[in-house]
């Protein structure tokens, strides 16, 4: 009881200070900005014939009222839903009447009632896909192309890899580490790039930290808890394979999310070349998943499960990205994927360090080859 009261004293004092501050209107600090501080995030664009609908979020400190909107130096009429001031962190859908033309670029400037301009750009106008069974099928197909299919293709290397010796096995594991590190770096970079578009209340870097470190620590904790149970080599290998596919799955979720939202806006570069590039790059992910299982005899069911775990989230990601994507979610999932793949790389590193005392250059060349492999295949899709 006494401890409780001791804990409560600073809290009570804090209440007093806040009350004092509020009652005196700043307690002597008369710090009012010359112009109101306002901030808007553009979260989603939906284009239909003769209209452009923008979902905006008020990321400023105070409620925000809209003024007028100019598209490409033309004042255009609009309706806002809900109408009236947008509360802090609240969203509104602004539907602008404008006869846009497919393939053209549009600069949209939104002036708030306080005459503060915020702008967004539509790179190339295109009809937004309606949410329908056909769209869902398209999303599923994209997820299948860029996620599931390549991972499974990679898994089919298993019979060939079985023929390799123990050194080759170590090299392969090192290769996987290289792949994962590269994916992790890439995802971190993409998360940081994307967070630049988030309003300050989202605290992009903090969000990336929580997602990345959170995923890393969680997988790490899971591996430590599990390792107490069984510790024969076969089950260790299987657990590692499972974690690799979990990590890759989380990574593919983030990737799918980005592709899905771009596809919905007609901005996705999903040409033949791009999709082939994706298949080529992600096929290496399948390779990574089966690397620890070269010496095992996994069942078909188990392999299929690993493939789905690694590739399937790409489908879920495209759905989420296409239907409900908000940028903060994209950033968070990218960070989650980054943390996950980096933890798995770390895990495999510990695993082969324990096993192979020799062969430092095997590991060096393996890791570097893995990174180089993704770099080269990345040229196709970046």
């Amino acid at each position: 009881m006494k401890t409780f009261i001791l804990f409560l004293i600073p809290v009570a004092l804090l209440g007093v200070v806040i009350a004092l501050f509020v009652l005196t209107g700043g307690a002597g600090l008369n710090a009012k900005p010359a112009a109101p501080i306002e901030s808007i995030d553009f979260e989603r664009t939906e284009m239909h014939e003769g209209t452009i609908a923008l979902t905006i979020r008020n990321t400023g400190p105070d409620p925000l009222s809209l003024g007028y909107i100019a598209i490409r130096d033309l004042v255009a009429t609009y309706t806002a839903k809900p109408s009236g001031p947008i509360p802090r962190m609240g969203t509104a859908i602004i539907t602008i009447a404008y006869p846009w033309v497919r393939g053209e670029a549009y600069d949209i400037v939104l002036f708030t009632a306080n005459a503060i301009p915020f702008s967004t750009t539509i790179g190339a106008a295109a009809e937004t896909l309606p949410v329908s069974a056909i769209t869902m099928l398209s999303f599923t197909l994209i997820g299948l192309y860029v996620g599931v299919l390549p991972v499974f293709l990679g898994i089919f290397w298993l019979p060939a890899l079985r023929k390799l010796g123990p050194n080759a096995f170590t090299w392969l594991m090192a290769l996987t580490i290289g792949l994962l590190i590269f994916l992790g770096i890439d995802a971190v970079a993409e998360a940081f790039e994307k967070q630049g578009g988030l309003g300050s209340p989202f605290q992009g870097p903090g969000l990336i930290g929580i997602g990345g470190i959170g995923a890393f620590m969680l997988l790490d904790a899971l591996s430590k808890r599990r390792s107490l149970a069984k510790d024969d080599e076969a089950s260790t290998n299987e657990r590692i394979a499972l974690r690799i596919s979990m990590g890759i799955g989380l990574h593919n979720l983030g990737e799918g999310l980005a592709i899905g939202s771009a596809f919905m806006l007609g901005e996705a570069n999903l040409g033949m070349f791009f999709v082939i590039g994706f298949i080529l790059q992600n096929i290496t992910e399948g390779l990574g998943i089966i690397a620890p299982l070269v010496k095992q005899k996994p069942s078909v069911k188990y392999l299929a499960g690993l493939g789905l775990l690694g590739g399937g989230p790409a489908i879920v990601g495209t759905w989420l990205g296409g239907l409900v994507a908000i940028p903060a979610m994209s950033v968070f999932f990218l960070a989650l994927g980054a943390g996950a793949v980096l933890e798995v790389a770390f895990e495999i590193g510990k695993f082969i360090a324990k096993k192979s005392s020799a062969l430092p250059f095997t590991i060096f060349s393996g890791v570097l080859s893995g990174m180089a492999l993704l770099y080269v295949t990345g040229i196709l899709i970046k």
Partner: protein
Amino acid sequence: MRKSARKNSVLPVWIGVPGAFLVCTILASCFEAAPTTVSHTSDMSSVHTTFMPGYSQDLGVDGIGFDPMAILEDFDYGKVSTLLDGRTLREYWIVAEATTVEVAPGVYYEAWTYNGRVPGPTIRATEGDLVRIYFTNGMMHPHTMHFHGFHPAEMDGVFEPVLPGASFLYEFEAAPVGVHPYHCHIMPLASHISRGLYGTFIVDPKGGWPKVDREMVMVMSGIDLDFDNTNDLYAVNFIPFYYDKHPIQIFIGERIRIYLVNMLEFDPVNSFHLHANFFYYYPTGTSLVSAEYTDTVSQVQAQRGILEFSYQFPGKYMFHAHKTEFAELGWTGLFEVRDRP
């Protein structure tokens, strides 16, 4: 043993995944044809014909703080008296003040005004009249009134800044005949003018102009809402789209004279284009002989002139800057022409 296990474990997946993939592809390609054909054949004309730029809501005189329709035909001849030498004396009282003006629905701009309106009062005198302007600065920055026309250096409103709360008497003879601007001449000039410190000064010839039915003043300008030295909105008589939402009512055959002044900052050239009609143009209004018969005239900063025209047919006719960007950002208006009652 090893061999068979491998076969058993891999083969079904080898067939199953590409199989599922193939089925999905075929399914998708079956559906694909439908939406694309629909979007290509759809008729967009309904959207195009109804599309006009403008605000989502109307602006009222209450929010604006003055009546742009009244400004159009509000000529201030001053307090008139006769001097001992027989000349006419015209006296004006003008205060510079900060006025909050609703320039777009819900968007309030702190304009700097002469007598609470932009453009400021249209000061009108006859050539040779003595003009006295009692100017008071009711703002927190120094301001002046700089008239285009003939006057001594100390009446030029450049080197005699009128400090906050102070007053100044401008006195000069109205000359030369024509339509001229006046504006504040305190640095930074672009800001002081852009904020709204300008107006029209008309010097009528002795005996007056040829008779017309109606006279109007139109001052072209821009509004730089976010102070980045780029105009965000454009207008005649300061309020974007005002005469578009509230067409100027005129009659068939009515002879219209427009005193047009360009006070646009930041952009180099402005223009005036009249629809379905031509007008006689008198540059600066300094000659009674028309220089041009046209439907479009351009003016650089502080250029001005007089336009004369009348309409033959009833209906709505646009007038706007033929720099269409300006037109779509507010510098657009309408004449609504009716039969004489």
